[in-house]
């Protein structure tokens, strides 16, 4: 299973270990694994955030993520891909999303991991509502995916 919606906190490293165990003997030909873990930060737009509510569209969300994985498998040489995403109440420091790919080639692993994460951010049906000292607010927009959009140091 390559897509999982988690309504309880999850441990990314337990998820990765389980996925590699499931790979079994195929693991010896894999060579490259690229992963990304996104966790909840305790601030956003300059304000402390105490907790967050993550809503999704049961059925569509899973279907959409599985479509992203299928498209990535058609484009890159992947042995396995895994997406885990939290829903429900999330606390600062909790992992929100895990994207992991396994390939015989590191370029395929790096590129597909980043691509899956960007596609997930911009298209997968999830919505965040932050609970801050000033009250609850729906997050309006996701952060940019290219470092070129940040101020240079």
């Amino acid at each position, binding site marked *: 299973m390559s897509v999982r919606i988690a309504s309880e906190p999850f441990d990314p490293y337990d998820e990765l270990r389980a996925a590699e165990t499931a790979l079994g003997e195929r693991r010896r030909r894999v060579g490259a694994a690229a992963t990304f873990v*996104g966790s909840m930060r305790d601030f956003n737009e300059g304000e402390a955030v105490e907790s967050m509510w*993550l*809503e*999704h*569209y049961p*059925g*569509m969300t899973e*279907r*959409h993520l599985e479509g992203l994985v299928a498209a990535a498998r058609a484009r890159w040489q992947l042995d396995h891909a895994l997406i885990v*995403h939290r829903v429900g109440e999330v606390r600062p420091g909790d992992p*929100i*999303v895990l994207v992991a790919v396994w390939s015989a080639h590191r370029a395929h692993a790096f590129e597909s991991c980043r691509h899956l*994460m960007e596609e*997930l*951010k*911009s*298209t*997968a*049906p*999830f*919505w*965040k*509502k932050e609970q801050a000292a000033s009250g609850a607010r*729906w*997050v*309006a*927009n*996701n952060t940019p995916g290219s470092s070129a959009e940040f101020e240079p140091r």
Partner: protein
Amino acid sequence: MSIKVRFFASLAETVGRREAECAHAEGLTVGEVWARVTGEPALPEGVLCAVNHAYSTADHALGEDDEVAYFPPVTGG
């Protein structure tokens, strides 16, 4: 025939409900169902829509037993 209508996240709060039924909707477009259910004339800019768990456009015509959903820009990950 009726169609199941769903709203998510901030849009559910704006509309004031999470689910609705739209009777005699066969042949209506996704945008027309929005107008009929919310009373607003047209689908607001920035509202996304899906039919049967896949993204759709406002001019998509609905069929029997379809499920249509409306939601704001996504903010996962």
